[in-house]
Each structure stands twice: as structure tokens, then as C-alpha cells.
């Protein structure tokens, strides 16, 4: 069907004074390369969020009459494979944009490809700071908040609770031994110093991701007599850390700051064993009363019979952003869409958002609070909404990071 026919048809449909007609034009194709087979607990909800957004947009007339179509591929957590798939989606399937839910390595490889091939990439899950700062480029956009933001929000919340008692203390860190871990602990150091906390970093442990030797590492941390523990333990490592830490009394009389603790996946595993009182970023999706979010939650539950989780929300937001940009650009030309993405504001369950010019980070909100127990399982308690924009470093600092990477 030619564009003209689609346009006429679209106009005719819109002119009909009845219910909004579903989109029927030639589909706009968006490629999706995500870690489906290797991290299904994250990509499963992500796909649900994405599909929900697409269904809603298409039911509402699509993009000027054209439906959105997402073509998904499995990256297998392999950056080389992801780049090959990007080539395939571009030349064989003729996608105009890419989106993904994946590890930072894969996202970085795709961002490099996106820059080279001038195709916008919507990152909905990799929160490594380097993706938009050190290695940021004009073609990458991110809906989820990053590591620095999480660290800033949680540390500031801890400061509110403890005030001066947090000054001049012994801090230890435990983070996975890859770039994400190092950069987020770095962010903690930067934020703690900025806020005048005068921390003494007495011990830092870097277990290999997924292979935490819980006993030895907990014992080493305990030996350093910490007052504050910054933990970036995830998934299996987190479980081991919690169990072993409790048995060895690591968490007694310490303040624990652990941004990734309160994601639903962790609560589902830990249940009653969820540690209490850890400062974290969470997703209290069942408690939020904001009407936009409630509407989204109800739609999600109606379609999937479950509550939305982090990847679902940010996948949904990604599609919304893309749709808004496509509508504004009135074209599928990747360059025009990219420009539109820089300017457009889009509606999400978390409110209206746009992308910052300097780094293409979506403005928006996050929920920060303290971990606790509710109905025999973990939950984020005493939470409040924080703005992403309040927890970002200065523009000068960001430009400094960009300058660090030599451009070939």
C-alpha cells in the first residue's frame, strides 16, 4: 500500500465519527535485540510492557494510521551476535529504529553500531553510566535511570535519616567485578564526597559476578568493622550475601545502602528473608496512587494477570517515546526521528518525560525508600518519589567524561 493510499485511508477513518479505528497502514518496523534466552526473567516482563504499548498505540490509530511492529531477536548476551542481528534487522527486515533490554556490553556494541549506521537506539534497561556519558553518542537514548542517579538518591535518603551520624564513618563496598560495579561504586564515592560525608573507605570487595564466595567475602568485610555498607549485589549473589551476612552478623549496627535490592525479582526470591532497613530504589507498583500509573497498572494486569515490573515499565516507556517521536517527525527517516526524539515529550505511567539534550537520559522519576517486609515478602517502605534530574552530575563533569574517550 503506498503512503498516499494509507494517508487517504487514514484520513477517511479519522473523519468517520465513531470509535477510533485501529491502524491499518503499512507497518512501521522497530527492531528489538534483547537477552531473551539468557535473562528471561527480565526480558519476559519487558516484552509484555512493549507489547502492551504497541497494542494500545495501534488500537488508537497507530502512527498516522500505520501500526507499529516490533521485530524481536535474541542477543544471547553476546555483543558480536547483537551487531550481526542489527545488520540483519536493518538490511533484511528494514527496521527504522532499534530498541533493547540487555546487558551494558551488548548495549554498548549496539550503540557503536547505531552511531555508525545512523539508526537511533532506545536503551530501556542498561543502567551503566558509561552508555550515555563516556561512550554516549547522539543516536543513543535511555529511558531507565542510571547508576549515578540510584546512588545519589539512596545516599541522600540515608543522609536525611541519619544526618550528622553518617559523617566520618567507615565505609565498605561490595560490588560485582565488572565495569558496572566499578563505575557505580565510583559514583558512590563521588556523591559521598560531594555531600561532605568524609567517608573512610576501609575495604572494597569485588566478587566475580554470579560467583560470590559468600563466606570469605562477608568475613573479610566484617573484619574491617564497617559502619556503612554499599552493596551492589544482584540476583544469586544477593541471596548468598544476605544469608551469609545474617549468619555472620555483618549487618548488625550497620547502615546498608543497596540501590538494586528492591527490584521485584529480588523480593520474589528472598520473600521473608528480605533484609529490613536497607536504602534502595524500588518499584512499589501496588501502592502507587498516581492516576497515570494506576491506569497503566490496570491495563497491564488486565492483559497479563500480573503486576508490571521494572523492565516492563521502561520497555513501555521506550515504545511511547518512539511513538511520540514518529508522530512528531511525521516520517520514518531515522535522522528525522532522531531529531524528534531530542525534542519530543512523551507520556508515561511515571508522568510526562523528555530526553535531556546533553546525554539523552530520560527525565522522569524513581521511587526511593527503605526495604521492609509486607505480607510475608519484601517491599519498599517509607518510599517517596524523586526526580531523576535532581540526581545527576553537573554538565561539566559529564563533558569531562566524554572527553576521556579518544575518538578514532
Amino acid at each position, binding site marked *: 500500500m503506498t503512503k498516499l493510499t494509507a494517508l487517504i485511508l487514514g484520513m477517511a477513518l479519522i473523519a468517520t465519527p465513531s470509535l477510533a479505528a485501529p491502524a491499518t497502514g503499512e507497518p512501521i518496523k522497530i527492531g528489538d535485540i534483547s537477552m531473551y534466552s539468557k535473562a528471561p526473567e527480565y526480558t519476559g516482563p519487558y516484552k509484555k510492557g512493549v507489547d502492551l504499548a504497541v497494542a494500545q498505540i495501534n488500537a488508537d490509530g497507530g502512527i498516522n494510521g500505520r501500526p507499529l511492529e516490533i521485530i524481536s531477536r535474541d542477543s544471547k548476551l553476546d555483543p*558480536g551476535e547483537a551487531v550481526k542481528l542489527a545488520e540483519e534487522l536493518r538490511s533484511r527486515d528494514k527496521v527504522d529504529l532499534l530498541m533493547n533490554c540487555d546487558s551494558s556490553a551488548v548495549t554498548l556494541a549496539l550503540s557503536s553500531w547505531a*552511531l*555508525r549506521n545512523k539508526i537511533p537506539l532506545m536503551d530501556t534497561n542498561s543502567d551503566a553510566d558509561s552508555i550515555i556519558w563516556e561512550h554516549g553518542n547522539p543516536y543513543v537514548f535511555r529511558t531507565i535511570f542510571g547508576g549515578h542517579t540510584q546512588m545519589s538518591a539512596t545516599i541522600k535518603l540515608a543522609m536525611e535519616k541519619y544526618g550528622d551520624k553518617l559523617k566520618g564513618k567507615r565505609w565498605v563496598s561490595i560490588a560485582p567485578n565488572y565495569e558496572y560495579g566499578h563505575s557505580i561504586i565510583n559514583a558512590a564515592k563521588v556523591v559521598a564526597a560531594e555531600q561532605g560525608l568524609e567517608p573512610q573507605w576501609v575495604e572494597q570487595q569485588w*566478587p566475580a559476578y554470579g560467583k560470590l564466595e559468600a563466606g570469605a567475602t562477608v568475613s573479610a568485610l566484617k573484619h574491617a568493622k564497617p559502619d556503612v555498607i554499599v552493596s551492589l549485589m544482584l540476583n*544469586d549473589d544477593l541471596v548468598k550475601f544476605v544469608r551469609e551476612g545474617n*549468619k555472620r*552478623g555483618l549487618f548488625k549496627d550497620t547502615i546498608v545502602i543497596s540501590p538494586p535490592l528492591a527490584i521485584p525479582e529480588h523480593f520474589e526470591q528472598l520473600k521473608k528473608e528480605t533484609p529490613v532497613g536497607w536504602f534502595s530504589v524500588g518499584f512499589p507498583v501496588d501502592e502507587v496512587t498516581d492516576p497515570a500509573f494506576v491506569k497503566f497498572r490496570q491495563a497491564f494486569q488486565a492483559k497479563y494477570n500480573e503486576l508490571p515490573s521494572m523492565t516492563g515499565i521502561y520497555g513501555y516507556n521506550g515504545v511511547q517515546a518512539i511513538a511520540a517521536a514518529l508522530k512528531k517527525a511525521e516520517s520514518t527517516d531515522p535522522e528525522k526521528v532522531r531529531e524528534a526524539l531530542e525534542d519530543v515529550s512523551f507520556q508515561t505511567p511515571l508522568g510526562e518525560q523528555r530526553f535531556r539534550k546533553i546525554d539523552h537520559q530520560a527525565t522522569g522519576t524513581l521511587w526511593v525508600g527503605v526495604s521492609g517486609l509486607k505480607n510475608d515478602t519484601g517491599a519498599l517502605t517509607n518510599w517517596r518519589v524523586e526526580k531523576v534530574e535532581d540526581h545527576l552530575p553537573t554538565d561539566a563533569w559529564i563533558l569531562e567524561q566524554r572527553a576521556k574517550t579518544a575518538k*578514532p
Partner: protein
Amino acid sequence: MSFLLIQLLTGLSSAAVLFLVASGLSLIFGVTRILNFAHGSLYMLGAFISYTLVQHLGAEGIGFWGSLVLAAGGTALIGTFIEILVLRRVYHVPELFQLLATFALLLIFQDVTLHLWGPEDLLGPQAPGLDGSIQLLGESFPSYDLFLIGLAGVVIAALTLLLYKTRWGVLVRAATEDREMLANLGVNQKWLFTSVFALGSFLAGLGGALQLPRESVSLSMDMNMIIDVFVVIVIGGLGSLRGTVLATVIVGTVRAFGILIFPEITLVLLFLIMAVVLIFKPYGLFGRAEEAAPAQNHVSTDALRLPPRWVGYVGVAFSIAMLALPLVVGDYGLVLASEMLIWALFAASLHFIFGPGGVGVFGHALYFGLGAYAVALLTKYFAIAMPLALIAAPLAAIAGALLFGWFCVRSQGIYLAMLTFAFAQMVWAVCFQWYDVTGGDNGLLGIWPAAWASDKTTFYYMTLTLCGISVLLLRHFIFTPFGYALRAVRDQTKRAEALGLNARRLQWVGMGLAGAFAGLAGALFAYSKGSVFPTSLDIHTTLNAMVMTLLGGLNTLSGPLVGSVVYIFLESEISRISEVWRLILGLIILAIVLFFPQGIVGALNKRLIKVKE
């Protein structure tokens, strides 16, 4: 002081479960000579099964412990099942195929487990009565950890009793020492093998079940454990129970203390220990040279003959087709074709050292990665021109190959293979952690080919030329006196040495050559993807090349080429149409190992080429 003692005990308790699983594999290897990749899968299954049983039988008292034992028993049954169904058929095929067959089982188990239990990690209950800690030397020490140390001790005692005081044990020890003799003495090997496999699987499953109170049951347990177990039994010496005990104690304690001195060493400590041990004791702590020498590591003793003339014509026709490809396929087709060519070169380099070279390496991806990183680093820091980089990469790779190869050729068989793997892991760890230089796991980005080679067609022709010439060169080397000498050393080491050939030096040079071409493949790979990550150095890259080589056929020269084309094609098409790509891939690999061990080309050879005797 008390802290150090606590740390020592901690190290021992983490060694306890590792010991259980490793002892199972050590026993199995000692008798059957099979290194079972799927041993980690059995460990994982033990954990999953015990999780489910505990849900049904309750987490108190007899319910909990009963579940653990039943889970171990269930795993033993599964192990027996795969032994009878699959492994019995691969006892007499070359070692490499056995490894691949068990790797195929690992893939199959991964998808089966995923579909039976779902993608989420599952957290089981704490052990009843052992969920707290006791005060030890002024510190809280988990009681469960003490229990594990005690249990490991009991198992060591039980195994020793079993091996030294029962008739079965005598047979097992005899089989470990000299399998052929045992068969000659009329012992029914079939049931001996099956029973050992059952016991080994029981231990693996028990190890998995015992993890329930400590960590969540997840789908990555298999790979995590199997690497550790392989390393531990190599350090200890294959087939030696004593060795396994000592090795796990060493590994557990060094790990516990290593992180006090240098926390980031976590990535590489295990392999560092193995490399150090193997350099001083090339057969592990208690291993023996006789065990290392593979029964046979090539498919047949047929000499590699030059094929008849008509095959040459097919080759020419094929080359013309490759040259004309851009006329027929679009951009994506050329990207895929370039990728196939790069992998074909990598597989051919692996084939060179594995097949004719007779050196079973397990860390060949190291040289692929060295080539890729050479290009990336030179581009990033010196903005080097592409032709220069393409020369520098193989040079970097050959330097690495000669450096590491010197240490490796002092070992043999599985020890050599594991040492190559250790070096690959160590370089991987350096690339992974040296964030300032190599970009760490973020990799190096923006590695694009020169402007004149940027369009897909030109890049394809460049790749075709380079890979084509390299493969022909490799082929040429096989038929030079050097190549014949290599094969002589492979087939009849003692006789060759008696004739004055220096086995070690020849293999060393062979490794260098293979490394150089692997490096070139890696360099082209870097340019084709535009980025380089530590994944190019890891085990999956090596395994891909191994599967391709075997798919095509180990005793043929076009094998790796055909294999890489078919494998890449299969992999991309299968994952397009199905979620259970691991299951399907595993079944295909199994089918090849069981029914087409000569590979595709080998099978074709048998049918089409009549050899004049």
C-alpha cells in the same frame, strides 16, 4: 589471628561442596576416561529437584533431609540414564567427540531445566536446626558451614572405605590404573562404568542439593560449577581422589585468603593456581603421564591424502561462486558470508593444530582475541591504518602463541588442554579488568575498517581474499615436511622421536602457526563488528570453533570450511524460529557425534571417494 582461622574454616566449607562434585567427576574420569561436561548439569538438577521435593515434603526435619537424599538419588538415576543411552556409544570415539557429546548434553539439560522450572531463580529454605551460627573464636560462624566440612570428611572416609575395602572398589581402582588389562581379565566393564557413573552423579546431585540453604537455585549453576570442577581435578591429577581432596582444599583456602590481599583477583585466581601447579607439575599434583595421553585424538589413522582431481574442480567452481556472491545476495547476505569466512579461518587454524597437529587445545580463542584486541588497541591509541593493523594482529597472536605454547607443550593430553584454557582465562581476566586500557567488559568501540573497505561488498572481497589465502597456506603447510613431521609426532611419538624429530619443538611451532591465523581471523572479526569485547577470548568462542571443525570433519581439509558455513547458518536460522535453540543444537551435535563422527565432509568422502588400497 582468630580471624585468619575463621577465614581458613570458611575456605574449607566452600571447598566442601566443590569437593563432593569434583570427587564424583574424578571417579567417573578415572574409570571411563570421559570428562563429562554435563556433570555440572547434574549438580544443577540435584539442586532443582531438591527444591521441588522440599516444597512437597516440607522443610522440617525428615522432609528436608529426605528431599536432599532423594534428589541425589534422582540425579543418580538421570546420570545412569544418560550413561546407558548416550555415553555408552561414545566410549570408543576420540576424546574430543566425547567432550562435545557431553557438551551437547549440557545444552539439552539447560533448555529442559528452563522449561520445567521456569526462568526465575528459586530460593529454598534454610536447613532445619542448622540455620543459625555458633560462636567460634569470638566470631559468629554459620553452623551449616561446619556441617558441610564434617559431611565432606564423612564422604572422604566413605569413599576411601568403598575404594579400598570392597570388591567394587578394587575394580574401580584397577580400571583407573589400567582399563585394558581389566577388560582382558574378564570383568564386565559395562556395569562397572554404569555403577561408577551412578555414584558420581549421586555425588554431584548431593552437592547441588546441599546448596539449597546457601544460595538460590539458578540456571547458571551448571556452567559455574563445571569450570571449577574441571580445574580442580586437573590440579589434583585426574582420577586421583587424594588429588581432588588436596586440590579443593588448596583452592578453597587460597580463594578465602586471596580476596584479603587483592579483591579483584577473584576473576582469575582459580586459573592462576592451575597454571602455577601445571608449570611445576605438568600432570597435576598426583596425576600420571599415562592417564594424560589420549587413547586416540584423531578420527582415523588414514593418512591425509590429497583428494582426487575432480574435487579440485569442485573447489574452483566454489571459488567462482564465492567471487560472484555480491551479484546475488544483498548487504546482509554479504555480512553473513564475511562472518562465515572469518569463522572458517578460525576453525581452520584450530583444525590445523588439533587434527594434523595432534595437540588438543582448549583455549584457542586466546589467539583470536589477541588479534582482535591488537587491532582495537592500535586503532584506539595510534589510529593505525587498517592494512598495518591486519599485519600487526597475527604478529601479536603468534607472539602470544609462542609464549604460552612454550609452557603448554610440556604437558600432554587433558593437562595441556586445561593449561591452554587457563592462559586464555587469564588473558581474558586482564582484558576484562584493565578498564583503563582495554575498556574492560565495556570493550573497545569504534573499530571500523578503512573508508575504502567500508561498504559491505569491498569488505567481503577483502575478507574472502585474506581468508582464502590463509586457508590455502594452512593447507600447504600440512603437506610440507613440517606438516608430515607433525603428523608423525601425533601418530607415533616415540618412533618419531627415535628418528630424531623434536616433538615439543614441532608442536610449539605448530601452535605458533595456528595462533597466527587465529589472530588474523580475530582482526577481521574486530573490523566486521566495529567493536571488541572480552567475549572473543572466552570458552564459547573456542567451543564454537570446535563444533564447526567437528561438524565438517576432523580428518579432512575442507571440513572446517563446510562446518563453519553449516554451523552459522544453523545457529542463525534455529534461533530465528525457535526458543529452544540450545536443545536443538545439542541434539544436532549429539547426532553428529553418534552417527557422523567423521563430520559432514568425512561422510561425503567415504561415499564419493574410493580410495585405492
